[in-house]
């Protein structure tokens, strides 16, 4: 009978992703490019937020957008109309982007002549939170139609981000969304979280978000 030899390995499986992500982060820092990872559930208003963000900042910085979806290029086409460089990444059925896919995407979009790259991650509150993409900062969008209990249900997402946008406040009168509760739940998970209630459609509250992003892009270039 064949003899089985046991080889001790003791190596982290997830480190692989974290290591690639760290290399990406260093590379972007060296090129003075800020990568923002934007996450949320489907339909929370990511694409409209991206478009309004580009329009607010395009005279100050060179912006690129990476749209990640399982299929289609509807988002990339919409974003490209702003004049920003946009590419579409297909995850081929996968629920998130990992650092390996990000590396390919960053090589494709070309990072050297961009100041800000926005990654619009796959719409999902679960898996994208678990994979470091090499982003400089991360933001999540919660639209008020989704309910104020989401931080209780998807805690990791609220823990890993630097900022949270509460979107669609222009629809507040139609929903029983409790602004105080959602902020308390989220802050409990992440005491340093910055929170921006706004409407990507009407522009209400949008300036505070843009100020935060502008300040963070500037800080990363120091």
């Amino acid at each position, binding site marked *: 009978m064949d003899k089985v030899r046991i080889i001790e390995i003791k190596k982290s499986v997830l480190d692989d992703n974290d290591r690639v992500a760290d290399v990406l982060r260093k590379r972007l820092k060296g090129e003075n490019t800020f990568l923002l990872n934007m996450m949320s559930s489907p339909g929370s208003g990511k694409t409209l937020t991206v478009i309004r963000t580009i329009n607010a900042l395009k005279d100050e910085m060179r912006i690129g957008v990476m749209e990640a979806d399982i299929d289609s290029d509807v988002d990339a086409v919409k974003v490209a109309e702003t004049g920003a460089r946009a590419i579409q990444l297909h995850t081929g059925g996968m*629920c998130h982007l990992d650092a390996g896919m990000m590396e390919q995407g960053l090589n494709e979009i070309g990072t050297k002549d961009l100041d800000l790259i926005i990654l619009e991650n796959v719409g999902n509150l679960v898996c994208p939170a678990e994979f470091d993409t090499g982003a400089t900062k991360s933001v999540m969008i919660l639209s008020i139609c989704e309910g104020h209990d989401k931080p209780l249900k998807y805690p990791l997402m609220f823990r890993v981000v630097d900022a949270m946008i509460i979107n669609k406040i222009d629809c507040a009168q139609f929903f029983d969304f409790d602004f105080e509760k959602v902020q308390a739940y989220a802050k409990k998970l992440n005491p340093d979280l910055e929170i921006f209630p706004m409407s990507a459609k009407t522009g209400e509250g949008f300036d505070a978000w843009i100020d935060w992003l502008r300040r963070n892009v500037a800080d990363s270039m120091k």
Partner: protein
Amino acid sequence: MHEMSIVVSFVKMAEDFAVKNNAARVVKVVLQLGEISGIEPRYLHEFYPTVIEGTMLEGSELVIETIEASVFCTNCATTYNPTKSDLKCPACESERCDVIDGRGLYIKEIGIIEPS
């Protein structure tokens, strides 16, 4: 379904180690999975046979051991074992905590057969 990409990565790692150790094939892979990693062992088992098809791991056994979670409260300096989703400190109820263990996934060892 991020378990699929996780299976692909650890199978690739196991293959690399097997090749480095001149294995003819791999018969067993032992993983250690953290309690609060958010990774479902059931799905790892489910995807494993498909991923190893046609590799030197084909037909091998997958064993998954659990690593107990351990969290340190930075507010009151207690170390505790949290429940699955709630990392809150049981002593002072603070959420300011550092996870010491239980979030990771490791390949502990592989069993190989050497060429005869």
